[in-house]
C-alpha cells in the first residue's frame, strides 16, 4: 500500500483569481500540515490559471499543481474527476480538503466513491489526533442542534469545509513554494454533460455571503414592505445586507436568494441581527456560525433568544426605526 502523506487542497478559481474559500482551506491546511510536519499542496485546474498558483503559495501552499486544459474552463464532474483522480493517485495525500461549494459538494462524494474512501461534508472544525495522526472532523447535524465528530478508517481522509469556517493566513508574497505545471490528459468522450451557458446573477448591493453584517427578517415582518424600508435602512447604515428566514421567502416577500437557513443559504457574518424571527432550528442552522447574533423579537420566549448573545424584547416597528435613527445621529457626529 502506498504511503499517504501530506495535505491536498482542491482549489477553486473565481473570476480567474484564487477563490476566498481556497485561501481559507489553505489557512486550515497549513495548520494541519504543520502539526503533521508534512507538506501542503494545492491543485488548481482551469483553462488558464493565471497568477493564482503564486497566490496559493502566498496563502500557505508548499506546492501548487497547476493543470490547464480547455475542458476545465468551468467545473463539470466528468472532466474534473479525471484530473483530481489522477493527481490523488500520483501524490497519495493523507488528507484532502475541499470547499463546501457548488463544485465541492458535487466533486467530493464522487471522488470519495472512486477512492473507496469516506468524506465528511460541511466541516466546521478539523484537527489532527496527535496519537493516531488521524483527522478529527466536526460537523453539525440535525440543523445545528448537535455536532457530530468523525474519523475515517479509510485513506485518504476527505472533508469538505464550510465557507468562512476557517481563517486564511495573512497573505505573504515572500513565502517560498513550488509551482508544478502538470499535464493531465482528459478523455472528453467521458464528459457526458455539456455546459450550454453559465449565468451570473449579480445581487444588488453587498452579497449575503460576503456581508460583514446581515439584517434579517422573519414571519413577524408581516409582508414585503418592511424588508425594503425598515430593514434596508438599517442594513445600509451598517454596510450590510438584508436576509430573511424561510416564511418570507415562501410567501414571496423576498427572493429565494435571501433565504437563510437549512434549506437556504448558510451565512457567517460578524454580526447577524435577527428581527421578528422566531428562531426555529431550520433558520438557526443557517446563521449559527455568525460571530455575534443580536435578536429583536416581541416574544420573550422566542427560541432565537437562546441563540443570541444580545436580545431586545420589543416590537420591531418601534425598536428598529429608533435604532436606525440613533445610529444615524451618531454617524452624523
Amino acid at each position, binding site marked *: 500500500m502506498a504511503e499517504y502523506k501530506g495535505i491536498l487542497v482542491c482549489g477553486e478559481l473565481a473570476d480567474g483569481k484564487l477563490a476566498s474559500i481556497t485561501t481559507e482551506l489553505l489557512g486550515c491546511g497549513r495548520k494541519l500540515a504543520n502539526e503533521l510536519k508534512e507538506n501542503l499542496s494545492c491543485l488548481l485546474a482551469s483553462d488558464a490559471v493565471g497568477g493564482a498558483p503564486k497566490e496559493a503559495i502566498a496563502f500557505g501552499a508548499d506546492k501548487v499543481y497547476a493543470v490547464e486544459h480547455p475542458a476545465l474552463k468551468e467545473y463539470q464532474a*466528468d472532466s474534473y474527476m479525471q484530473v483530481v483522480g489522477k493527481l490523488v493517485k500520483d501524490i497519495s495525500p493523507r488528507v484532502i480538503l475541499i470547499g463546501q461549494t*457548488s463544485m465541492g459538494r458535487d466533486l467530493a462524494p464522487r471522488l470519495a466513491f472512486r477512492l473507496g474512501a*469516506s468524506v465528511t461534508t460541511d466541516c466546521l472544525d478539523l484537527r489532527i489526533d496527535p496519537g493516531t495522526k488521524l483527522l478529527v472532523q466536526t460537523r453539525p447535524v440535525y440543523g445545528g442542534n448537535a455536532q457530530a465528530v468523525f474519523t475515517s478508517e479509510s485513506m485518504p481522509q476527505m472533508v469538505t469545509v464550510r465557507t468562512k469556517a476557517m481563517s486564511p493566513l495573512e497573505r505573504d508574497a515572500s513565502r517560498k513554494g513550488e509551482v508544478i505545471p502538470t499535464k493531465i490528459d482528459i478523455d472528453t468522450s467521458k464528459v457526458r454533460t455539456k*455546459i450550454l451557458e453559465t449565468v451570473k446573477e449579480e445581487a444588488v448591493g453587498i452579497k449575503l455571503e460576503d456581508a460583514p453584517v446581515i439584517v434579517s427578517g422573519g414571519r413577524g415582518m408581516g409582508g414585503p414592505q418592511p424588508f425594503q424600508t425598515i430593514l434596508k435602512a438599517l442594513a445600509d447604515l451598517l454596510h450590510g445586507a438584508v436576509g430573511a428566514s424561510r416564511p418570507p421567502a415562501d410567501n414571496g416577500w423576498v427572493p429565494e436568494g435571501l433565504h437563510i437557513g437549512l434549506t437556504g443559504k448558510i451565512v457567517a457574518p460578524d454580526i447577524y441581527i435577527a428581527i421578528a424571527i422566531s428562531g426555529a432550528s431550520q433558520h438557526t442552522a443557517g446563521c449559527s456560525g455568525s460571530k455575534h447574533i443580536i435578536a429583536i423579537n416581541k416574544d420573550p420566549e422566542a427560541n432565537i433568544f437562546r441563540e*443570541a448573545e444580545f436580545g431586545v424584547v*420589543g416590537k420591531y416597528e418601534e425598536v428598529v426605526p429608533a435604532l436606525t435613527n440613533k445610529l444615524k445621529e451618531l454617524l452624523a457626529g
Partner: protein
Amino acid sequence: MGLEILVCIKQVPHPDHFSEIRLDVGSGHIIREGVPAIINPLDRNALEEGLRVKERFSGKVTVISMGPPQAQKALEEALAMGADRGILLCDVAFAGADTLATANTLFYAVRKLGKFDLIYCGNETVDSGTAQVGPQLAELLDIPQVSGVQEVAFVDEKTLEVRRALEHGYMKVRLKLPALLCVTRGINRPRLPTVQSIMEVAQKEMIIWKAKDIGAPPESIGLKGSPTCAAGVYEHKVGRRREIMQGSTEEQVQRTVARLKELGAI
C-alpha cells in the same frame, strides 16, 4: 414510450422538532422518541418532478427508501402522492450505514429492479445533510448526474437541459438519459395527496427487501461497508454571552447602539 422513473426518498425527523432530539451522552445515540417523522422535504420535490415527467411521457414511478420498518409510512405517503410502487430496503444488516454503504445498498436494489431512465433524489436531507448519496449512486451506476437542479426541460425524449444552481448564478447543462438528478427546493411545489389517491394506496405494490433479496455483499453495506467512523455526537452548546433586554424602547436602543459600537459595527 414510457419512462422508468426512480425516486429515492428518506424518512427524517421533522425539522421543527429538531430541538426535541436528545442525545444519550453515554452511548452517543440519538433519542428521537416522540419526534414526528416526515419525508425529507427535498425528496418530495424529487417525487413531484418524477410524477410530472410520468404525466407528460407516461411511464412508471418507483419510490425507494432504506430505513427501519416505520419508513414504510414515508413510502405510503409517496404512493398517496401518486407513485406507482414502493420499495423498502429494511434489514438490520443495513444499519449503521454511512453514505457509501447507503449508495451501495441502493445500487444493488436498482440492479435488481432493472433499468431506469431517470433517477431523482433530493439534493440533501435536513437531518444529516451530506448531499452525497445521489452523486455516489450515479458513480456506481455509471450514469451522468447533476446536483443543485432548479429546472428540467426535455429537448426530446432522451435529452435534458437542466439548470444547476451555482454560488452566484446558474449553469445550463445538457445531458442524455439515463441520468440522475438531485433537485433543489425551488424546482416545484410538491402536490398533496387527494382522498382518492390515498384510497388507492392499498392497491399499490409495496415490496420489502432484505440484504439477501438484493444480493448485496455483507462487506459493502451497513456498518461493515462504512469507512466513516462516528466518534461521537454532542449537543451543540452555544457559548454566547447572553443578555436579554426588556424595558423602554429608548433604553433598549441605547444599549443596542453601545453593543454595536463594542462589536465594531460603527
